[in-house]
């Protein structure tokens, strides 16, 4: 599968390395070259310096050929904007988007995006951890 990842932070780099090691064709985009240091040595994918909200930059990075697009920068609104570009302008078949703010995440999901909120998910898991362990202690 051809995959493009916008944002090479911890999450972006982790996704990139996992998909690369599983044999997928990965392109990672970030506005800062320093971000690519998070990729381990031997990473076989492509790195592109550029802004994922900019149509021409996305085109140069090959967005028209990808099967999936991840929007995982630090900014919820940037991720939303780039996801809608990928979906509505470039018709990428799978667009996955990280949204920290649970309120916004719900709205964007209702608007048809595949969203993931580490805040909601993390809260859920940690509450489970606490209550789960209390259950066990009983």
């Amino acid at each position, binding site marked *: 599968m051809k995959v493009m990842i916008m944002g090479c932070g911890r999450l972006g780099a982790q996704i990139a390395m996992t998909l690369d090691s599983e044999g997928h064709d990965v392109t990672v985009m970030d506005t800062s070259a320093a971000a690519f240091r998070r990729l381990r040595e031997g990473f076989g994918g492509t790195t592109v310096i550029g802004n994922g909200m900019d149509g021409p930059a996305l085109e140069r990075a090959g967005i028209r050929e990808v099967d999936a697009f991840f929007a995982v920068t630090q900014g919820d609104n940037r991720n*939303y*904007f780039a996801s*809608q570009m990928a979906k509505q*302008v470039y018709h990428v078949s799978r667009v996955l988007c990280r949204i920290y*703010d649970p309120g916004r995440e719900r709205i964007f999901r209702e608007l048809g995006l595949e969203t993931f909120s580490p805040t909601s998910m993390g809260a859920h898991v940690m509450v489970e951890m606490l209550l789960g362990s209390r259950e066990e202690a009983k």
Partner: protein
Amino acid sequence: MYIIVAGGGKVGLGLASELLNGNNEVLVLERDPARVAQVSEELGDSVMAGDGCETSTLDDAGVARADLVAAVTGDDEDNLVICEIARSRGVARTIARINNPKNELLFKKRGIETTISATQAILAQIEQELPTHEMISLLKLHGGLELFEIKLPATSPVVGRAVREVLLPPESLIALVVDPGGSPRLPGGDTRLNGGDSLVVVTHRESLDMLREALIGSTHGLDT
């Protein structure tokens, strides 16, 4: 009307004061506390500290009863999100400021039709002030017919086409083609048109806009 203005920069402040003068109920949302204080000096209570991209801020502002939300921050992604949240809360009319004209397409695709781009506004103004910049009237003839000289820009839709392929408005005729070197030719159907050519065209005064569109092209069609 109750109008929420998201973004208390120069645009937001100017817009809000105008709207207040027009006896509307206005609330400016601004996330920078220092800027909130500045806006408050001019608008009093009509400003609230908070990020207009947060659902909770918009809810506190009473977005559900707003007649209109204007998203005028300096960031297009924020303006898009503000409009989306407002619409999801039932606001019928949203207006977005677009800072980068390239982003207009996405706003249109998202169904946010009323977008305001300073670049586009200035372009439209220039166009209006210089409407016949590339079209010079040479002679008025009888019956509303007029003779024009039109210089083809390189971006003209007819560059590279033969005269017979050019779709002209009714009662119009390309009478003469003058190349950039100044040599005139009487065109036949096979004569090819090049950028920089000057055409002498007979047309009806009422077809002027159609003629301009046909030979010069739309000057505000950045959308693909």
